[in-house]
């Protein structure tokens, strides 16, 4: 019989850290400029794919780099930074190459339809939006916003993984790594899905009016991830 209360009491700090990591992930997804199917037809600003999929792609790349770092060092800050950089590189490369396709393949200038002037470069946006569309491509503000989102998501994923890997248990090392990584991937997906109800298909980044809805997702994520954290800590700590 597993001593549930004992395992939870011994690892309560990690339950809190996992919850924090999950909340970071769900907040980060709001930063990522996704446009869904309209963006794939150059009808909306952002990356032409689904919210969850892109956030998961970036965050899981961060998880891979964080996992590699955890193998080499014990420093928590370094592991979180590795997760952040891995996710930022993945999302940065994706947005960069996506913009290459928009500019050279489709022939559209990056433009946002939600603001008249790019808050970072102060460039005029509205006259560069072609007729019948809601913007296209990734202007600098969306690009920077996506990088921030990828970074926060990477930190969140790495924090969940680091916390799970710190729980004392009686498993063989290879099994432990596999189980912790699968739990980290699962918690990541749960938190990547929650904000998609806020985003509803398209968001351009932190300058988009929809971005202001983020507290709802964060509160939801707090409750959901706390429950996930308890289950994962009991599972790993009890084995």
């Amino acid at each position, binding site marked *: 019989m597993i001593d549930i209360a004992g395992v939870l009491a011994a690892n309560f700090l990690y339950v809190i850290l996992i919850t924090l990591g999950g909340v970071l992930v769900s907040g980060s997804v709001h930063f990522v400029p996704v446009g869904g199917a309209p963006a794939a037809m150059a009808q909306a600003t952002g990356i032409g794919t689904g919210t969850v999929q892109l956030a998961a792609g970036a965050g899981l790349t961060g998880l*891979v780099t964080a996992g590699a770092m955890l193998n080499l060092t014990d420093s928590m800050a370094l592991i979180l930074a590795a997760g952040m950089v891995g996710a930022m590189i993945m999302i940065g490369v994706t947005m960069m190459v996506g913009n290459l396709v928009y500019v050279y393949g489709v022939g559209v200038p990056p433009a946002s339809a939600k603001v008249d002037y790019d808050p970072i470069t102060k460039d005029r946006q509205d006259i560069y939006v072609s007729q019948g569309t809601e913007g296209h491509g990734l202007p600098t503000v969306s690009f920077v916003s996506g990088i921030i989102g990828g970074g926060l998501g990477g930190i969140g994923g790495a924090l969940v993984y680091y916390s799970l890997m710190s729980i004392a248990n009686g498993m063989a090392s290879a099994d432990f790594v596999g189980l912790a*990584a699968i739990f980290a*991937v699962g918690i990541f997906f749960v938190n990547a899905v929650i904000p998609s109800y806020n985003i509803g298909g398209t968001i351009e980044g932190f300058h988009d009016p929809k971005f202001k809805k983020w507290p709802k997702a964060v509160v939801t994520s707090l409750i959901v991830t706390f429950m996930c954290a308890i289950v994962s800590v009991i599972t790993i700590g009890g084995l």
Partner: protein
Amino acid sequence: MMYPHRIFNKAISGEPPSNALLAAVGGASASVLMSAYSMSVVFAIAVGALIAAGIHGTYCTTAYLGRSASQKRFRQPIYLDMVRSHVPVMMGFAYITTFCILVVSYLMTSVLGHPFPLTLLAFIWGITVGAIGSSTGDVHYGAEREFQNVEFGSGLNAANSGNIVRKAECGLRNGIDNSWFCAKFGGPVTGLAFGMTVFLSGWITTIFDPSMGANIGWLSIVAGLAIILILILWNRRLEVFARNQYGPYKEDEEVTA
């Protein structure tokens, strides 16, 4: 609606889950063959990719037949010769994708000493390659190839959605014609993006090895941030180029905001 076409429609779920499924099936089969039957690595990976390609072929067939048959109101005919000609090609591409992802994952676990198991790494890289393909190469297909009849140099007017190009240079256009076109630009840049992601995320810790001390580990983070800064600046140059090239679409008016 009322646009009968001969383009293979195999949208099952998103691209990332679909690729992750392929890679995970292939990775699981390969690691079972390697550990339980102690087969050689190349053979195990090839067989794993073959199993994944077979599963992909099943999904392609059911997706095409199921979508066209159940959405009868769109009046799309089901061409059995398209199933015969397209499914083997798609299985071939699925085989190549899975094989390459398994090779990357195997090298990471065995040579670079990554702690994650092979199947999980394959799953994660499957999600990543799907996310990248869906957001880069697919745009070339969805925004340019399917709408070659509208003028180059602007986004697609929402009124034109659904009015895809259905006639080819000779005869009716099919999915293989579209692959031929996208293989000129969309496909290679997708590969470039995935290669850059795998390479750059691993490169920084290979050059600045964190096992030699925390300071060198922090240098790898600095190198990563420098790469990201270069990407931001490159993107800005590209944005300026495109703005000058395609020009404003409307006359400049005073904006009150």
